[in-house]
Every structure is written in C-alpha cells, then in structure tokens.
C-alpha cells in the first residue's frame, strides 16, 4: 500500500513539474481553450485506460481496444446516420432503418461488453493467453470495421435526430468538457470498486497469486473474465465519445494504437504487468501525464514527428526511476533490520 502511495506521489510530482515547465515556456498552456482541450483528451483516454488497468491488475493485457473503437464507431455512425447506412450483404436488412439514439447507445455499449465477455471466456475457459486473444481481436475487429464500412470514412453529418447524444458527448458543463466529467464519475466509482470493495480485493488477489486466490475460495475465472468485461464496457463508452470527438471515423485508422496509450497510462500510474498492483488515482495521473506531454510537444514547437519518442523516453524514465527507488528502499530496509 505504502509503495503505491509513493508511486502515485512520484507521478504527481512529475506531472506538476511537466506542467510548470510547459506553462513557463508557453503562455498558451494555461489558456482556457488549451486547458479545455487537454481536459477533454484526458477524459477520452482516461476512461479506457481504467479498463486497461483492470485487466493489467489481473496480470493480463487487452490489445484490442483501438480496433474496438473502430468497429463500434463505424457501426454507431451507420446506425445513427441514415445517409451512411449501406450495410454489406448479411446486414442489408439494416439499410434505411431508423433506430432511436438511446437504443443505438445501448447496442454499442452492449457490443463492447459482449466483446469483452468473449475475450474473458477465451482466456479463462479455453485457457488461451490474453496477449494472443486480444491480438487476434485487434486484427479481427479492424478488418471487420473496414469490411462493414466498405472502407469508407463514416461521419455524423449534422447529427439530425441525435443532437442530444452529440451534445452529451462533446458539450461542456460550466466550461468543463463532458468526457472529463464522465471520467471523474467513472474514477470515483471505480476507486470504490477497486480499493474498497470485496471484488477489488479479489481482483488484486487473483493478479498477485491466482492459485492462492483459488485455494482461498475465490472464483478466479470469473474474476479474471470480469476484468475483460469491464475493459470492453469502458471501451464502448470511450468509443462513443471518441467517435463524436473525431466526428469522422476512417475505419483503417480510427483508434489506431490507442490500446498502447491505455497500457502506457496504467503502467506509468503504477500498474505492474506482472499483475496484482495498481491504483485508479495512478492510472488517471498516468493519463494526465501522457496528455500533458503530448500538449507540451505541440506547444513548444517540438517537431510532432518526435512526439512518440518523447512519450517513450518519459515512460522509460518514469519506470527506471521507480525501479531505482524500489531497490534503494529495499537495501535501506535490510540495513535498518541489521542495525
């Protein structure tokens, strides 16, 4: 526990430093518009990063998220926007249909959950490796997105008939972007789920030592599968928001490599890929740091071609610093015990 708080504190300090440096170098950083934009991005990325974190805590990984965004985005646009629905053969019956947006939202969230359940089933019941299952998902859903849309970019046009949904996804309340508010709500709920509930403790137990958890009477398969279900559901929520944020979904590119942002945020926030470690606050701080860095690259005029290099270097530095500190505190402990 102490270890986690230290990690959270560490990344928080790093976040403050990066913010301070950016603010000093660029007056735009603290401009209201830039803050709003950054907050919106943090919201969009934070939601699915929490899902990624849940899976990582069980010792697994979910690589499918980016492609899930593509296939859900395409399906949503085609269901909502009558100008866009020219479904391929087996789905032709959907052409010209008018489905209320609330139903569409339910369908999209349901689909996300369903895909997560499928991953969970394959991993816990068929005993395939998480990496393989979700890698196949990454390829398969991307392909299906391109097939369903006939490789055409889909959009929402004027959002006729679902203006409310568009407002919900892209609007602001008191100047705060909706995705950011949704992230706050989700983080609070998930904080209780992960850090205060029986289920959360079981999740950590399973990630730390699956066999010991099983010997303690925990239904480990169900707990592990549930993490993928949560990841799928959150990908559904984030998928809807991201689709409206980009406002056009090009099936080959939409959401490309987003799963890695989620994993990076979770790892930066203290989740261990070995499982059994992590926190909601850490994941949210990790997301913030990634987005602020992205913003820093843009504002400071660093060539955008370098942005990935900056991200990679900062994540590596963060993980390195953490490892060094861990080693040092271990040594100090041994010394204290001897003295």
């Amino acid at each position, binding site marked *: 526990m102490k270890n986690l708080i230290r990690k959270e504190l560490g990344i928080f300090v790093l976040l403050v430093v990066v913010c301070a440096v950016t603010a000093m170098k660029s007056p735009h950083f603290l401009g209201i518009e830039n803050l709003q934009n950054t907050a919106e991005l943090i919201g969009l990325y934070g939601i699915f990063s929490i899902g990624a974190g849940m899976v990582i805590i069980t010792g697994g990984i979910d690589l499918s998220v980016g492609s899930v965004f593509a296939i859900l985005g395409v399906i949503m646009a085609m269901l909502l926007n009558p100008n866009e629905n020219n479904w391929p053969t087996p789905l032709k019956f959907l052409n010209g249909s008018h489905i209320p947006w609330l139903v569409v939202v339910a369908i999209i969230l349901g689909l996300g959950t369903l895909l997560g359940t499928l991953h969970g089933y394959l991993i816990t019941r068929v005993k395939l490796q998480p990496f393989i299952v979700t890698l196949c998902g990454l390829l398969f859903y991307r392909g299906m997105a391109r097939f369903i849309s006939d490789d055409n970019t889909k959009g929402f046009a004027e959002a006729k008939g679902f203006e409310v949904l568009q407002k919900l996804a892209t609007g602001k309340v008191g100047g705060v972007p909706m995705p950011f508010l949704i992230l706050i709500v989700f983080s609070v709920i998930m904080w*209780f789920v992960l850090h*205060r*509930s*029986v*289920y959360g*403790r*079981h999740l950590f*137990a399973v990630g*730390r*030592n699956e*066999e*010991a*958890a*099983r*010997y*303690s*009477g*925990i*239904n480990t398969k169900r707990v592990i599968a549930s993490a993928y279900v949560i990841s799928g559901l959150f990908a559904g929520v984030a998928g809807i928001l991201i689709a409206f944020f980009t406002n056009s979904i090009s099936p080959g590119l939409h959401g490309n490599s987003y799963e890695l942002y989620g994993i990076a945020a979770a790892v930066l926030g203290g989740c261990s890929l070995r499982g*059994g470690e992590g926190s909601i606050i850490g994941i949210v701080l990790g997301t913030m740091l990634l987005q602020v860095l992205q913003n820093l690259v843009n504002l400071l005029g660093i060539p955008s071609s370098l942005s990935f290099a900056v991200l990679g270097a900062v994540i590596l530095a963060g993980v390195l610093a953490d490892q060094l500190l861990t080693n040092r505190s271990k040594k100090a402990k*041994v*010394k204290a015990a*001897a003295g």
Partner: protein
Amino acid sequence: MKILGGLVTPDEGEILVKGQPVKIGHVNDSIHLGIGLIHQELNTLDNIDVAGNVFLGREPSRFGLINRAKMRADALVLLERLGLPISVDTQLDKLALAQKQMVEIAKALSLNARVLIMDEPTSSLTVTETEQLLKIVNDLRSQGVGIVYISHRLSEVTQIADRVVALRDGKNAGDLAKADITHDNMVRLMVGRDLVRKAASAEAKELDDCLVVKGLKTTRYPAREVSFDVKAGEIVCLAGLVGAGRSEVVQAIFGTDSALSGEVILNGTSMPLGNPRKAIDAGVCLVPEDRRSVGLIVEWSIKQNITLPGLSKYARMSLINGQAESDAAVTESKALGVKAPTVETIVGNLSGGNQQKVVVGKWMLQQPKVLILDEPTRGVDVGAKAEIYDLMRELTKQGVAILMVSSDMEEVLGVSDRVAVMHEGTITGVLSQKECSEEAIMRLAVGKVQAA
C-alpha cells in the same frame, strides 16, 4: 547459508576458507572457493537432461557448440561416484524428486566442492530415499567433503552428524559434540526450553461421523478408489509414502483438484465437488502443503491473508469495513500467537512457523467443521510445531474433525487418533491408536494390505 552461497551479502562478520578470510559477493565466488549449495527448493531444469543439468552454465564447448560427448562422459563419472542408476540422457521431468536432488548433488560435486551445504535435503523425500541420501552423505564424508547439513528432522541429525550447531532467531544457540547429540538436547537448544511431549487424546469416545468419503477417484490414480471417514472431534492422519496420492485425495475433497467420481458427505449431506468456495462455505477448509505458493499471498499482509476467504463478512453492500477487517485479523493472529509487529506485516517476511499460523488463522475465521492439513509442520520450527498441535487438539475438543496428511512419522504417531495408510492411490489399512506403530504404518505404506 545464503551468504555462503553468494546469494546474499553479509552485513557483518567474516568467512574463513582454509584460514584465509574471503569475500563472497557473488555465486561464482563461492563456487571458486569450493562451496556447493543444495537448496531446499531444487534448482534443476525439467526440460533438460541429467548431463545438461549437471553442467548448466558451464557446458564444455568447442567453437560455441556444446561438446556433448565430454559432458556426458563427465556426468557419468559423477553419477557413478554417487551410485546413481540413471542414464545421463534422462530428461529431468522423468525423475523422482529424490533423483533430482542427487543430480543437484552431482552438480555441486562437478564444481569440486570441498564443502557441501544442504538445506533441508530430505524435506520432501520418502523414508527409503532419505536413507539413500544419508548413505551418500556418509560416502562423501569419507571422501573428505565437509558437509553442513541443515535439517529439522532430528532423527537424521542424530544419525549422521559429527557436530551440531543450533541456531535460534538468527543467533548461535549452542553446540553439541558427537556424544551429546540426542533428540532432547537438540530440542532444548532450539526451543530454549524443554518441550513437554503431548500425549494424544484419550481413546476415542463414541463420536458422530462428520466427513465421509466414498469411492473417491482422483486424476492421479483414476483406477483406484478411496473411502474413509473422519468423526467429529477426531484427528485422522493419512500416512503413506510420497506419491501415494494423499495430497490428491485431500485436494479432491476441498475442490482444488477435480474428482473423477465419488462422493463426499459432510454431516449427512452430500457436498458438491470441484468447487473450493462451496467446500469452504460448507465448512471444509484446507491448509495446503505448499503454503508459500498456494496457501498464502506472500506479498500481502497478515491481515489481508487472514480475511481473504471470508472477506464479505466484513463488508456491507460489498464495501469492506476496514476497522472490522482489522479487528478480526488482530484477534485471530493474537489467538494463534503469530509473532509479528502488527497485522500489517508482510507475510513473506515471517518465519515458516508463523506463516503456517497465518494460513491456519484464515481458516479459523471460517469456523470449519472439517479442517484438512497437508503436511502442516513441514518447514516449521519445533516451537511453532507444538503450538500447531495444541491448536489441533483444541479444535477437536470443539468438535472439529481434522484430517491430516503427514510424512513425519513422529507426528503421525504422536497426534493422530486413527491413521489411514495409503499406497499407490488406495487405502491399504486403517490403524487405531493402539495398533499404531512405525512398523505397522510402514508395512501398509509399502503395499501390504491389512489383514481383516
């Protein structure tokens, strides 16, 4: 011990080899000095053959390619020296545990070890295997190898040791010369007091059946059936040699292993098999053999481990009440005498005995009707052993049925009310306390069926 092996660096003090002080900062240093270390947990690789394991990391090579012929020949010499009748080409996973251990010894010898440190080498060996090992230890001694033999098994120590150094709480507790090596002397040094041997409870009164196992078939011995019963307030021990299928039976009862067929009846009602949760809820709990990897989450605190199986008891609307959880853990660990500063102490930092108390503690909070203990005192110090036996007695007074798997003859004879002996997947006989003797158990354990 780990310091000598070069795994841990010492905080203070010095090591002398042939009168010269030396520094050991790395595994290679100790190898150069002729110190060979045989760990309690074996360090052999199952996917490589015997010769490859003996020369792991030091394969004789030419142009970067392994010189297999030389490696096999050299390994053969070592195996002969140990009198080991196995082929150097055998894949390690085909060998029994005892044979793997011999391979480990061969590896140490191949390094020209002058001092061999053996940490609990017999902890998972059967009686015959142990004798074999002790014979090899004797041979090595006559060949001029110094041996540091770390063991909790006092009968072995009496048998082979020339000198005993007892340690307690990381400090020297005293030495014994050859003539003074007796069971009681050693126990006194280790415990710091005389241990009063507990007499087993008086001959069983008329007790009710609590756990009845009928026709249970495990995956290890699919053609053999096991049937027995444990009465409320009774301690039944499953004895037998390693590999007789005892752990498989208790795992099948608890549900962590699947049972192919059979029935487990608890207080008259049939219990669903293959589901530990249902077993726990019905009142059947298992203290598994391997506490570090399945009995506990060693990275977690005492509190988190103790409350894990019944966490929802301390929760309202699925949210954990931290105070209630802490209180329960504190009460339980005090009751069991777990020696740790607080319940927040990480379990991995506790001694074997205290770890075992934590495992028992987590089941105590579940108020078991049947407590199954698989090798409950393996790797547990003498003091904690006695405490665990006391606790078992205490539980039987409360009407708990106890089923214990044990390979420790002293324990089998000293604690059980009845002993069921297994041999290759079946029960060859059940002995009452009166009939129980080392010879009687061994006879059944090697497969002689009890005369009706």
